[in-house]
């Protein structure tokens, strides 16, 4: 029986701008199981990054969570915690690695200093020897040579190495959940592959839950057990990885996969999705994908489909099912 580690219910986030309000997330429901790698895929503006930040109640201004709850370990609603209580969860139970984080490393601090700073920020009484040995252990886990890396400055390391340092830093307090927002976007193909390999081995060794957010679906094929597809602020499909790629049910998922040319497989039948994503300040009535959907009919423009379970593990938000 799979245990839930995170349950997101009815989550909505709005960004209040000067002239209009953007509904970045609307009524999002999602379950994350312990020890799994969940991929969240979607294009720009679909709300996937907002979702990552919302889980830890860290949506940047002018964003605001307007409804819903995020239940951790079946016991705590993160959204109801005070700042002090949340600091016990952030980085300790749930670690969020934001986009382009390899550039967040302080250029004037050595890597060892980064470890020290992170340790001392949460556990001021820790001893130097403990820091060093934990740092060594973590760096080896991400296949970096501690002798070389601990004494280096960030600019002396390649992009891929910096990214692995960030992962090591995020694992300092043995979090149970690791949320990664576009961790491989700036990496080369080979570097990306090594990174995914390290991530996979971490998942096996530590039994850690990984939430991997990306716009590059192909990368998810390397790690994800389940994949959630987002479009225009909503989750439109959630299913095991194989089903998403080989038996997609939502028209958007289907179209998205058909828009990716790959080095294997057929080049026939590939095409873009016509049109553009809706303006989230005034989304269209009914299904948000209807204006671009090849299967849409009249009902689709009036009724908004809800995420419905159609199979053992397969959920779709589409009126066709």
């Amino acid at each position, binding site marked *: 029986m799979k245990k839930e580690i995170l349950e997101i219910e009815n989550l909505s986030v709005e960004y209040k*701008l*000067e*002239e209009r309000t953007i509904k970045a997330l609307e009524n999002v429901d999602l379950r994350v199981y312990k020890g799994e790698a969940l991929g969240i895929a979607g294009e720009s503006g679909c709300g996937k990054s907002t979702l990552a930040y919302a889980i830890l109640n860290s949506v940047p201004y002018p964003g605001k969570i307007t409804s819903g709850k995020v239940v951790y370990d079946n016991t705590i609603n993160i959204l109801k915690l005070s700042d002090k209580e949340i600091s016990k969860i952030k980085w300790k139970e749930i670690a969020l690695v934001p986009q382009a984080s390899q550039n967040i490393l302080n250029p004037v601090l050595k890597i060892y200093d980064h470890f020290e700073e992170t340790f001392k920020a949460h556990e001021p009484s820790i001893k130097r020897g403990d820091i060093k040995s934990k740092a060594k252990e973590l760096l080896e886990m991400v296949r970096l040579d501690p002798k070389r890396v601990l004494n280096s400055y960030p600019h002396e390391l390649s992009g891929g190495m910096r990214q692995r340092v960030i992962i090591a830093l995020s694992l300092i307090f043995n979090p149970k959940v690791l949320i990664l927002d576009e961790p491989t976007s700036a990496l080369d193909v080979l570097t990306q592959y090594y990174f995914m390999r390290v991530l996979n081995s971490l998942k096996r060794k530590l039994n850690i839950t990984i939430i991997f957010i990306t716009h590059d679906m192909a990368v998810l094929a390397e790690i994800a057990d389940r994949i959630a597809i987002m479009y225009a602020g909503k989750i439109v499909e959630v299913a095991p990885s194989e089903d998403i790629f080989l038996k997609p049910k939502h028209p958007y998922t289907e179209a998205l996969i058909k828009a990716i040319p790959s080095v294997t497989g057929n080049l026939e039948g590939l095409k873009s999705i016509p049109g553009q994503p809706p*303006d989230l300040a005034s989304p269209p009535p009914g299904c948000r994908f209807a204006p671009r959907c090849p299967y849409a009919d009249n009902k689709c423009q009036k009724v908004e489909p809800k995420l419905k379970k159609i199979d053992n593990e397969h959920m779709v938000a589409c009126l066709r099912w």
Partner: protein
Amino acid sequence: MIMLKSFMDSLSLFIKVIKRSKLSMLGFIILLGYLVMATVGPEIIPYSEKSNPKEIFLPPSWEHPLGTDYAGRDVLQQIVHGSRPILLVATLTALISVMVAIAVGMVAGFKGGIVDAVLMVVVDIMLTIPGFPLLIVLATTLLKGSTNPFALAFILSITSWASLARAIRSQVLTLRERDFIEAAKLLDLGTFHIIIRELLPNMMAYVIINFMLSIINAIYNMVGLFIIGLLPFEAQNWGLMIQLGITHAGSLFSARTAYYLITPIVAIVLLQVGIVLFSRSIEEYFNPRLRGSRK
């Protein structure tokens, strides 16, 4: 017709941007006030040279909102009438400085190489010569007692174009690496076109703000020359008031007469404050992304 429409569009955008920040709006109102004062003010408020010994150094009252000076004349009238010559010369100076600085700075920044090297040598020479002493020399030798505002503006601009040229060159050095400039090079649009029509429009905020600050700079320089007594006085102006205030009226020493000295100083400082506050709206107006339009 198209010109009128685009002018109206720019105007409405300008109004929208100003409304966004109360401080900026305050700055704009201050500047507008100065503009009105310098152009229309002297026509509205009468000027009389008559001295009135019975009314010297009166404190502010309804009749004399800023009091009277050492000869019994109304101070407010002097401020208003004094604004025109000083602002006229200062604006001319800023105009000349900015135009020369743009020409030199942009050509040097964009062309690079030997053109840049030569121009920067000239700029550096100008920057090494102490500004104010040079001004004194120029004022005594070239002006020869003339009160022509253009002559004065020319001299003042000689000492102020150089640092602006350097600043503009730095701006160009960053801008020229951007893709759309490279695209202009690829399309062979020509140096002149790239400088005037591709680079300059993207520097407008910078140029305009520096233009306004040059006005203040010119005013300070003029006041300096007035205090030394180097500039011949033709009409009322603030610098003159300050000079007279220090030398004749003894305003530096007496609290009762202090406002005669303070009012022109406040007039200058208030203008500077207005410019600084307003500059934020200028930046927002010229930056399409700050304007907050849709993606």
